[in-house]
């Protein structure tokens, strides 16, 4: 491995900005770190360069552990967004800087400089000052300067950020060509997905300091595992669909055929499906669709963008419209569609035209957290609960919706619960939780008043049967809050030493499963004592802590954990319930 990061964590004022990131970049690979601003990608790049120290983890370059090696001894080349050229030096002096520092002879320096200037197509610029060059030329000088000392790794921090579109593309081509020619391992940081697609061999997507997914550009686009990657890499319509025995249903209409292995559990559940704008088929009537019908719609807006036509379509079928997640998760539900010019010519549209919509290809995200349902005794209280800061930030980050449900008096036989039920914390919480779990809810979030977004999430399950589901839910949750994950294993006190080996092994299994199956890096801690006491003690060690608790026995919620849920001021607790005989859900991709 050319670059290997192992559980790298960097905190600023106790807030993790890079959170347990592990990456391996192969020899000669062009790796693009993609993420919105503030996702920690630049900090990670600076950590690789050695300009930022890390709080936890290890960094190695070509098999050499450089975690504690200074930047100047790491042998990397770094290119900055604002070029960072030395303005008082000529181009020649800039490029020769690294060679001069190393005491190379003048003749050798000159030869190397000529070589580099040729590489970036700037021959004859030697005696100019940086101020006399255009932005694109300056950045090429910066690339040449970063390569002068023949580094093994080239790092580029948003190198095109300060340039206009035309020059950006030209420089992009130059950098790709130089990288191919030298075969140098390269990491580029950007927030521009188009840039990432154009340059990358491998893309790693970051958000909230976490590395969400790593993969080849096409795979990430076609089969994202998280809703963030789905919406950040290109445009995406997110739908709440139901996974049933007959396949996936969107509202009342089946979208895919039956026969998927995902229904092993035998229970219906809600899933999040990704429908790319170009995968929506438009026809004037349902019968003319070649793909699966999803809904009827009315054209609202048509934007001509050159090669493509972009449409915004309002769904006319009310129950279906309610299942469509808007770009921010709430508000208006509109379907984004793009059509090519030939498609447009076949069926010209105008705003207001009613059309039938079909899905050519639907990708179901493997996330177990689809939507939220705020439950309280009255609708008004439920609405108030939905405005809790934690729930609000979760639903916004997850681009999903928060439904409202009045469950006054805990009457029997309610409508099925979809998604995560949210209830207010307090003395009655455990009763409500038990009732919800008995009536079909699989996950319940207990929210104390004004609970902040957590900085640390503890994960614990009472029974190994709940492990898979709890880890899946935790991983999904932790993609949407910037918190560190800690698995808390608890061994009853008074057991002989030999009997502790089993929990220890479970702990390590849990960690490798989290890492391997969900890309979730979590720390592990082992406590000795009584479960509820130990959970309470650990949750009390700091502010802004949260618990994900996996259980297999409904009565536990009402009895054993009563004090935990009733604590004042309390902590957010996400209860994941799986009956012991029900295997965890897995929702594979479904293609129509």
């Amino acid at each position: 491995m050319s670059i290997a990061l192992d559980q790298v964590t960097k905190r600023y004022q106790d807030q993790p900005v890079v959170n347990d990131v592990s990456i391996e970049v192969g020899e000669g690979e062009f790796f693009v770190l993609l993420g919105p601003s503030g996702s920690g990608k630049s900090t990670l790049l600076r950590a690789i360069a050695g300009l930022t120290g890390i709080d936890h983890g290890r960094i190695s370059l070509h098999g050499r552990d450089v975690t504690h090696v200074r930047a100047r001894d790491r042998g990397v080349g770094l290119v900055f967004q604002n070029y960072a050229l030395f303005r008082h030096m000529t181009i020649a002096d800039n490029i020769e800087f690294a060679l001069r520092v190393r005491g190379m002879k003048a003749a050798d320096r000159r030869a190397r400089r000529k070589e580099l200037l040729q590489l970036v197509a700037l021959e004859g610029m030697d005696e100019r000052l940086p101020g006399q060059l255009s932005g694109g030329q300056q950045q090429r000088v910066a690339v040449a300067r970063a390569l002068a000392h023949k580094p093994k790794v080239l790092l580029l921090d948003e190198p095109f950020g300060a340039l206009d579109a035309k020059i950006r593309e030209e420089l992009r081509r130059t950098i790709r060509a130089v990288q191919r020619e030298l075969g140098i391992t390269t990491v580029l940081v950007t927030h521009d997905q188009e840039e990432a697609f154009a340059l990358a061999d491998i893309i790693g997507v970051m958000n909230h300091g976490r590395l969400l997914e790593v993969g080849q550009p096409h795979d990430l686009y076609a089969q994202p595992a998280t809703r963030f990657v789905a919406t950040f890499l290109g445009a995406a319509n997110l739908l709440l669909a139901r996974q049933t025995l007959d396949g996936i249903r969107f509202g009342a209409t089946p979208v895919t055929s039956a026969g998927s292995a995902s229904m092993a559990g035998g229970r219906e559940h809600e899933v999040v499906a990704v429908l790319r704008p170009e995968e929506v088929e438009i026809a004037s009537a349902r019968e003319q669709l070649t793909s699966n019908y999803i809904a009827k719609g009315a054209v609202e807006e048509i934007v001509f963008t050159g090669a493509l036509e972009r449409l915004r379509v309002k769904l006319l079928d009310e129950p279906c419209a309610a299942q469509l997640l808007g770009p921010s998760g709430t508000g208006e539900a509109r379907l984004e569609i793009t059509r090519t010019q030939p498609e447009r010519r076949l069926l010209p549209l105008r705003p207001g035209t009613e059309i039938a919509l079909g899905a050519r290809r639907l990708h179901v995200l493997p996330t177990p957290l689809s939507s939220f349902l705020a439950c309280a005794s009255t609708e008004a209280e439920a609405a108030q609960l939905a405005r809790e800061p934690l729930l609000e930030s979760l639903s916004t980050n997850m681009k999903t919706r928060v439904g409202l449900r009045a469950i006054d008096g805990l009457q029997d036989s309610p409508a099925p619960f979809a998604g995560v039920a949210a209830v207010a914390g307090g003395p009655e919480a455990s009763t409500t939780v038990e009732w919800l779990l008995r009536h079909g809810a699989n996950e319940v979030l207990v929210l104390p008043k004004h609970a902040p977004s957590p900085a640390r999430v503890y994960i614990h399950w009472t029974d190994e049967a709940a492990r898979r589901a709890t880890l899946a839910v935790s991983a999904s949750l932790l993609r949407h809050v910037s918190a560190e994950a800690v698995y808390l294993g608890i061994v009853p006190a008074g057991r002989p030493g030999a009997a502790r080996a089993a929990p220890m092994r479970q702990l390590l299994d849990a960690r490798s499963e989290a890492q391997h199956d969900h890309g979730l890096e979590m720390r592990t801690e082992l406590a000795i004592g009584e479960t509820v006491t130990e959970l309470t003690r650990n949750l009390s060690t700091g502010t802004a802590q949260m618990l994900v608790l996996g259980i297999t026995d409904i009565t536990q919620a009402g009895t054993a954990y009563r004090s935990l849920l009733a604590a004042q001021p309390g902590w957010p607790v996400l209860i994941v319930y799986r009956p012991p005989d029900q295997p965890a859900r897995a929702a594979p991709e479904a293609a129509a």
Partner: protein
Amino acid sequence: MKGDYREPNVLPGFGITLGFTTFFLCAIVLLPLSALVLKAAGMDFARFIEVITSPRAVASYRLSFGAAMLAAGVNMVFGFAIAWTLTRYDFPGRKIIDAIIDMPFALPTAVSGIALTTVFAANGWIGQYLEPMGIKVAYTWLGITVALTLIGMPFVVRTVQPALAEVQRDLEDAAETLGAGRFYVFRRIIVPTVMPALLTGFTLAFARAVGEYGSVIFIAGNMPMKTEITPLLIVIRLEEFDYAGAAALGCVMLAISFVMLLAINLLQVWGRQRMTVRR
């Protein structure tokens, strides 16, 4: 008429402001200076030369400009250090230190002169320890330099501070990844980048020091040929009602100051041309 069209300006009142600028320059700067030169021109040439080349006068020039140059040089080094500390580090009391830097601006110079004399006199707080070591500060050229350093310090700090704040951290980071050590980065990247500001600060401190009178006369001891600065000599001439002689000395100070400031400014222009930013 065609030629009369003027590009409308965002801020009106060019005529008025230019008028004021000219008036201000004439009334406050040029007129008094011309009067000075005229007064000196009133004497006959041989007498003029005699006054300005008298050994006492020459000794005072050397002291005035030498001490001012030395003080400005000291300020350049330590003012840079202070500016560096204030811009690069955050520590408790930083704001207070930042405010204290301006004190010499506000303090009447006579007060600082008296204060320095108290401290550096042979029996003063610091002077009593320096005396046994054979270092005399008060009533020597050293004392003059100390006084001039004190009053010139804020000029350097205040001009270098913004320039240092503007040095991009990226430049240092870039140099570091290229293999440069800290001292190398400082010498080859930071100092050249803030050099123009440093020179401006030096110029201001120097100009202020040359003209300084109040604080120096208390600590200088004012012995002719030894610790007598030119401004003091001018005052002495005035007290003797030798107006022409005073004016002659004034003219010399004016000429030397002008030449030196011009030289420093040219140096800066040359430096700035090298740093011109064009995108």
